[in-house]
């Protein structure tokens, strides 16, 4: 075989290996966050009845996706607004939820906005939760604020988004004495 064929093959192999190493050592933050959210949905989901030890271990794994000062604000129709403050409170709640015995959680249509410094990001997604055997499912649009701490993306803030708002842009602007353009559905 001619020498130039070997040179071209070697150059191609070098490019492929260099590209792979680049992805391994400098991963795209968007891919990392999407992977992390996929892992979170798997960790939150419960496949079946768990032993008390597994409940603690799995709840701890879920809590690890969040920062120590995590703030969760839940405001959904038909229930009073709820707040969870801190990883410890979240851990306790995660343990109680895991007693249900079965839960399938999916994050759908994830839209990510990464800050220019690539240290924080905002995720807008739709959560779908289903208890096996139950006809109804929970569907909720959510906004997550993520921060990169010590090389790991963790969720610092979670809030529910009202797809259908109770106030229009004009009314909200009057209420807030604000006169700019903004997304009406983020409050």
């Amino acid at each position, binding site marked *: 075989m001619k020498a130039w064929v070997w040179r071209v093959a070697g150059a191609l192999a070098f490019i492929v290996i260099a590209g792979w190493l680049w992805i391994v050592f400098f991963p795209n933050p968007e891919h990392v966050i999407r992977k992390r959210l996929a892992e979170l949905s798997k960790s939150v989901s419960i496949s079946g009845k768990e032993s008390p030890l597994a409940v603690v271990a799995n709840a701890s794994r879920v809590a690890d996706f969040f920062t120590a000062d995590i703030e969760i604000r839940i405001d959904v*129709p038909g229930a009073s607004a709820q707040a969870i403050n801190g990883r410890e409170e979240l851990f306790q709640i995660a343990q109680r939820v895991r007693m249900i015995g079965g839960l399938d959680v999916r994050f759908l*249509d994830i839209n990510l906005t990464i800050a220019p410094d690539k240290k924080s990001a905002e995720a807008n*997604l739709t959560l779908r939760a289903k208890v096996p055997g139950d006809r*109804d499912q929970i569907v909720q649009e959510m906004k997550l604020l993520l921060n990169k701490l010590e090389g790991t993306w963790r969720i610092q803030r979670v809030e529910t988004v009202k*797809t*259908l*708002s109770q*106030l229009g842009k004009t009314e909200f602007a009057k209420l807030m004495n604000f006169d700019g353009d903004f997304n009406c559905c983020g409050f």
Partner: protein
Amino acid sequence: MSMATNGGSEAPPWLRTVLIGRNPKRTAIRIVVLIVVSIIVFRFILLPIKVEGLSMMPAYKANRVNFVNRVAYLFHAPARGDVVAIRTSGISIMFMKRIIALPGETVSFHNGHAMINGNELEEPYVRYACNWELPPRVLGQDEYYFVGDNRAMPAADHTQGIASRAKIVGKVLL
């Protein structure tokens, strides 16, 4: 002895004819065209959906298949009474609601009746009486008010409210 021949080649077996036709090349082109047309139609024009939940009862029952016409509002604005799909963070899961108030209007509920600019809205599609009382809300220039037909549940439990035109994915077809 005489035999009928077809250009010297044997006639294809009936199963082969049914599955791939007399001309496999033409059949392959037809399949590709069909796949491309289906992807375009069912992704960008008529979005297939499965209805879940009870909020649009009795007009739209749970577990029925329907379609969202994504090009319905290309040439005209959404109208009052239209049943539309409203996007969440995407279109994997959408809300299916009816438009009852248009941009610039004031909407409220009094004694279970929808009031538009202070006048009662006639809603033949609402079959279950309710006693909803909701204060007036003024809609912005690109905002619509969406509510389900099933008003049997308390207003607080019923997902309803305001969203901008951009949130409307399309009109529910059937």
